[in-house]
């Protein structure tokens, strides 16, 4: 069972580690707050409340109880030997976030932020969702904690992920299809921000990834740090040593930043983020923000961004709706620039091959997002050779992707 963060100092500033951003949320040059003045009060309030909560045993204890008694933590660490046979002989270990309640790592962050919402005395939660995983997790936490829940989802995604729309509605959430712009995740975030600026007195914006304006990147990261902390302990118990590399998929980057932080002070452990290479970087149809983007501001932070020569956002593409985002969390931009983490692109085809391989060799159907990390691990295995140990963040399960996989592999007729 995860332990509450130790409380040693009263002043929140004393609690900052060398990996925390500065007071205004900068990781090196990245992060900060690039949002309308109307939201600055709410962001200040959120920062102040979070700084208090993270040191308050009542809050951290309640969070830990929900993670263990509701979300099902700690999640398992599973070795994948038959899958690893395809990875040049390296050993591969899966951090099983797919086994959490609601089927992905997303539940960690939503439970934390929903508790914080209650603490701030707000009764209404809004969220954005792409594939629907964060929306379902948010609707779940709101049902549990008796909060009104409104989820913005691009109209294109509501059609692609109709089952998740039904799930959210079953859980009592209102799902609003967003018909503006490209009608996908980035437009759902725009619409959620417009709602927030209008209803900020009563409403918390429960952002689903470690991106956006300060304090979201550091707060969301800290709610997901449990992934890396558990995994480090588990892999040491199992193998007696640290892994050579940790692989995680990166869309906005929340599961990656969570697992990376368990190992960030272990310089011998390579941190490898796998971005959606879509149909291939050269086609322009991808979502490989860190590999191909340049710094810019979107949705409240300065970070790497897919943009054209005029600074207009470029549509991202990926077979995985959860990675289909033209921005990325600012801490990843900093980890890229400092060289502490490396980022690579994995194509749709490579991800789908790994998706099928894990299903057939280990009996685990991964989320297509997580299959990008698996594909990255296969390559890393060949690079590391027989003595290599690779930890993979299996961030979610693939139930939601069965329809996509059925079409992709032509598994059933008439789809």
């Amino acid at each position, binding site marked *: 069972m995860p332990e509450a963060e130790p409380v040693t100092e009263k002043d929140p500033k004393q609690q900052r580690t060398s990996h925390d951003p500065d007071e*205004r949320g900068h990781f090196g040059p990245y992060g900060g707050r690039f949002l309308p003045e*109307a939201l*600055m009060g709410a962001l200040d309030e959120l920062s102040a409340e979070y700084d208090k909560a993270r040191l308050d045993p009542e809050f951290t204890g309640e969070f830990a109880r929900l993670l263990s008694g509701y979300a099902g933590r700690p999640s398992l660490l599973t070795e994948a030997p038959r899958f690893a046979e395809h990875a040049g002989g390296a050993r591969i270990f899966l951090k099983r976030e797919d086994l959490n309640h609601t089927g992905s790592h997303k539940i960690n962050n939503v439970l934390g932020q929903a508790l914080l919402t209650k603490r701030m005395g707000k009764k209404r939660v809004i969220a954005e969702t792409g594939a629907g995983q964060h929306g379902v997790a948010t609707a779940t936490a709101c049902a549990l904690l008796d909060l009104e829940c409104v989820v913005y989802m691009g109209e294109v995604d509501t059609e692609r992920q109709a089952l998740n729309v039904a799930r959210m509605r079953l859980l009592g959430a209102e799902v609003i299809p967003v018909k503006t712009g490209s009608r996908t995740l980035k437009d759902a975030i725009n619409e959620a*921000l417009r709602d927030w600026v209008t209803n*900020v007195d009563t409403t918390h914006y429960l952002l689903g990834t470690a991106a956006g304006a300060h304090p979201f990147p550091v707060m969301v990261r800290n709610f997901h740090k449990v992934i890396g902390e558990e995994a480090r302990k588990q892999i040491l118990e199992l193998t007696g040593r640290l892994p050579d590399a940790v692989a995680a998929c990166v869309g906005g980057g929340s599961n990656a930043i969570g697992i990376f932080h368990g190992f960030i002070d272990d310089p011998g452990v390579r941190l490898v983020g796998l971005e959606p290479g879509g149909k291939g970087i050269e086609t322009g149809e991808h979502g490989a923000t860190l590999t191909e983007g340049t710094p810019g*501001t979107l*949705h409240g932070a300065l970070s790497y*961004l897919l*943009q054209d020569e005029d600074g207009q956002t470029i549509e991202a593409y990926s077979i995985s709706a959860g990675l289909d985002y033209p921005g990325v969390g600012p801490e990843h931009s900093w980890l890229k620039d400092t060289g502490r983490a490396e980022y690579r692109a994995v194509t749709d085809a490579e991800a789908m091959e790994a998706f099928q391989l894990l299903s057939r060799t280990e009996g685990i159907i991964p989320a297509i997002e997580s299959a990008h990390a698996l594909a990255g691990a296969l390559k890393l295995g060949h690079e590391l050779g027989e003595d290599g140990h690779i930890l993979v963040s299996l961030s979610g399960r693939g139930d939601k992707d069965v329809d996509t996989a059925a079409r992709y592999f032509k598994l059933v007729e008439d789809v």
Partner: protein
Amino acid sequence: MSRLAQLFEGTRAEKRAALVGYLPAGYPTVGESKDLLAATIDAGADLVEVGVPYSDPVMDGPTIQAAADTALRNGFRLRHVFEVVESVASRGGRAVVMTYWNPVFHYGVDRFARDLAAAGGLGLITPDLTPDEAGDWLAASDQHGLDRIFLVAPSSSEERIALTAKATTGFVYATAVMGVTGARESVGASAADLVGRTRKHTDLPIGVGLGVRSGDQAAEVAAFADAVIVGSALVTKAADGTAALGALAAELAEGVRRPAVPA
């Protein structure tokens, strides 16, 4: 003295508020946007805000979002904004640019300031850039003699109003209501309250925007603000051409000139 300061000295001498009209550059096309801005100025706008169409306008309601989409679909490129500003300046009009931050950041802050000043633009309104993150822009605006118009909101604390007013030159932009751009039935008491709170921190003129759509509303806002800023209502009329747009601008110009009626 900046040219915006001169403008407000003039309107204060006339004991009236200034009329500020917003239209996006490139809407519906670059050429037509020049004509529409010219019609707005000819009908009595003291200053125009030339908007930069952007892919992710989080501060804007449906009207301006749709106009930005149209402009981008019709081939608007960032360099066109300088061309449009120049067309205003060359007719003797006054223009500031209103833009989300990323296009400026990506173009290069100093380079953008230089090119805007060269085109005859007077300054920049930055809806998603607050003074907290504006170090480069403070330097560039000083360097190139541009005014920097930051926003205050009903949710701004006294401390934030003070910080914003201190960094601002030209005029302070007060957003009348909590929400995105769009014409509204009433601008609300929160605008007057915000202007009152802001005046305690600055002698700068204060413009009120978000929601004004008629001469009567313009007159109401003019009673407590130094500038009445109109966006979405003008953008809606722009779809009907220069004559319709000019008629609304004239009505608004008459509104800001009405003698204030004691409440």
